[in-house]
């Protein structure tokens, strides 16, 4: 079956099998920032933005994504995304980096709708992203700091 999806603001044609999941379609098409850690919707490494909402692409059929605006971490390059990425790097929030694209998707989704989240809200937003390296401490700090910088800039 041939379908068209909008990924990172580009229309792309996919030839898919029935039952094919979005994670596989994306990775096969070269969107390898979307990582596979469990394929059961538990780890969040495969998260993408679907119409601005963070979703695990391993629990979504590719065909379901028709008509949605799909974004991967590579497609996030506005100011907010850059602030988040730089903050993660500055704070030492990246170790192996395998969970990071998914975590940035969650963080971006959070800050897009809630520019000044509490620590508790940040933790809740990251709840679907497992990280085995960092213990989450620096990621929570990095998101808080990115939010502070983002808010300051928005207010200017």
């Amino acid at each position, binding site marked *: 079956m041939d379908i068209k999806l909008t990924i990172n603001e580009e229309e792309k044609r996919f030839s898919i099998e029935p039952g094919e999941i979005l994670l596989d379609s994306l990775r096969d098409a070269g969107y390898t920032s979307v990582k596979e850690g469990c394929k059961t919707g538990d780890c969040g490494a495969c998260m993408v933005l679907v119409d601005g909402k963070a979703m695990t692409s391993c629990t979504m059929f590719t065909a379901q994504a028709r008509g949605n605006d799909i974004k991967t971490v590579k497609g996030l390059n506005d100011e907010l995304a850059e602030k988040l990425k730089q903050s993660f790097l500055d704070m*030492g929030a990246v170790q192996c980096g395998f969970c990071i694209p998914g975590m940035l998707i969650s963080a971006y989704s959070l800050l897009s709708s809630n520019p000044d989240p509490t620590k508790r809200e940040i933790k809740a937003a990251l709840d679907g992203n497992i990280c085995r390296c960092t213990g989450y401490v620096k990621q929570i700090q990095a998101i808080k700091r990115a939010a502070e910088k983002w808010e300051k800039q928005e207010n200017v």
Partner: protein
Amino acid sequence: MSEQKKRFDVVNKNLQKVDGEALVNGKKVFTDDLHRQTDLVAKILSSPIAHGEITNIDTSKAENIPGVELILHHRNVPRVPYTTAGQGYPEPSPYDAYMFDRKVRYVGDRVAAVAGRSWDAVEKGLEAIEVEFNELEPILDPKESRKSSVTIHDEESSTGIYDPQKNIAAHVDINIGNPEEIINKSDIVVKQKCSTQFAQHAPLEPHISVAQLDPQDRLIIHTSTQVPFHVRRIVSKILDIPIRQIRVIKPRVGGAFGVKQEVLLEDIVSLIALRTKKSVKVRYTREEEFRSSRTRHPIEVEVTLGADRNGKLQAITMEALSNTGAYGTHALTVLSNVGSKTLPLYNKAPNIHFFGDAVYTNLPISGAYRGYGAPQGYFPLEVAIDKLAEETGMDPLEIRKLNHIREGETSPIFEKLGEGREGIVQYIHSCKLNKCIDLGAKEIGWKNRKQVKKSQKNEDKARGFGVTINMQGSGIPLVDLAAARLKLNEDGSFNLYVGATDLGTGSDTVLGQIAAEQLGVDLDKIVVYSSDTDFTPFDSGAYASSTTYVSGNAVKKAAGKVKSKILTMAAEYYDLRVEDLSIHEGQIVSSNQTFELSEIALLSTSSKLETDQQQIEASASEVPEESPPPFSAHFVELEVDTRTGEIKILKYVAAVDCGTAINPNLAEGQMEGAIVNGIGYALTEQMEFNDSGTMINPSFFDYKIPNAEDIPEIEVILVESSEPTGPMGAKSVGEIGINGAIPAISNAVRDATGITLTEAPFTPEKVWKKLKEKSS
């Protein structure tokens, strides 16, 4: 802190990871990103039974499935005994594994592998293989293993097993002084038995390996490993191909924690690539990772302390029964570390007996896991120390200060007990453990803890505070080898080639910082290339908390050699005395002149020098003669819900002496990650099995590792310290952080409720039962 910061220009600074930019942008850096499309893919058929002989295997139907290209099983592969442990040669683990064997020894063991042109074809192929087993009685209880009439490794070809008939993979017994006799005469005796569970590493990236042949028919393996050089040697051995025909490349690794110190998939992809001449990939699913990779050794340890009435330790005995599962990979060394990484901490006890066995069972294979036996040993030891404090009426901090090792001191354990062999005599040059205890106590509010407990209003919640201290090591002395090579480029930058393996820990960055510091340049002048057996020099690999200390020293040496070659060339060219020259911030400095390093760099390969042109470069090897321990004190404040048995950690503080933190952010990150890993190990993580030995919770949904909402407030304190034998004063910090959670939580729960938790994980059910027992 300020004084130390001034001493360094590049080291002890929070510089951005050299691979960070690529990682946050999700670039193609992991094995599957680089090799999404391969000619073939392959999967492993694993054993559905815990113990049995394969009496027949019929692959004819599977071979006829369109797309299936090759099936491997015990009848068509070499039968070479080896160990999957990626340890230095000769490995201290028994050679008791075979690529595919006639026997299966746990649910998840290898039976066959199918390679085909699509995942679909391969899965159909797996289903079509017909296997007949002669089922044997499995041993599922390590306590039964030694006396069982069943023998798990009855094959004659295996070597290095301590006592195959009794299912004992490894045995340790060291005795110093007269511990049993002294304990009998001691004023105070404390006995404590504790046990730990099967727990898994769960790196976010499961195991994956890709193999292909290059145009010269050399075998190229891309693999997510901690030990590229051991992979090359072990694949060469199993498949009987020369080492020169193999190149192993480690791309970025998505977490490892010890589970990738094993050669799990590389032999299979290699043989498929050699036989089909096609590129091939094997990757574990999460479920396969749970069932068939490696676990932490469950160990039951009994500690007996003998002390005088003032709390001074006189003798310690420690007996361990370790469950190595179906194969003996890391059996001896993990067992050794239960004692060797714990007992030297309390060197005031002159009489020590450490003994135990690692036994086979028909359960998943235990292997290397961050901490490597130390967490299992610290559990009873630190609970016992708290009980000793109670007996003497001393504060738990004071009893520890009275008995722990200090700078200038040694322990006979260092010499008697190494990793699977005798150790080395070693004195402690850096130990700021008292400061760790003091700073940690301040941060948790140790002094006020009794008031805090009293002020607790909700009577269903019992508040408690717990402490534990611990140490680890920095590499394996006289065993590890690390090498580094540096070459100067014409613009004054350097290529740094290290065999050392960055697993996400940040070691490429740390080693780059060490090189930059030694050379007098910024980190961005160092181009780090690591873990490629064709291009980088040998390194044992990333395990045993070795990289910062051992590989760091190799880098420092190589950088020192290169620097002296640069200065020699500069002195000759500018007609200066080499003794007057140094390099600072990328400039060659003499008493009254400065030159850009890039000038000499360009000159070195310029025809201006005619026959004196040269590639300025150097390499260096490092074999550590000591293993300086990092030290740490952990503190926990928690609440126990006395109605449900649920433990809620409110605050976790760990102060650590890891020498100079080369990159403080990354050092803290190692601690924080290990602490949360340890909290999971203490509270929720457990592989569970049914009566036939099948793991029943092989998913992140059922095997609960902590996520962001589960973590308490965590405070890591890097205590200022400098290790004279370490690069720029550094020790290692990769493992130590996992040693504290179990005993600190157990001690805090006793402080809160009076019950002693002795079996990890501390699930609400176990806590509730103990609370019931106590109240009835």
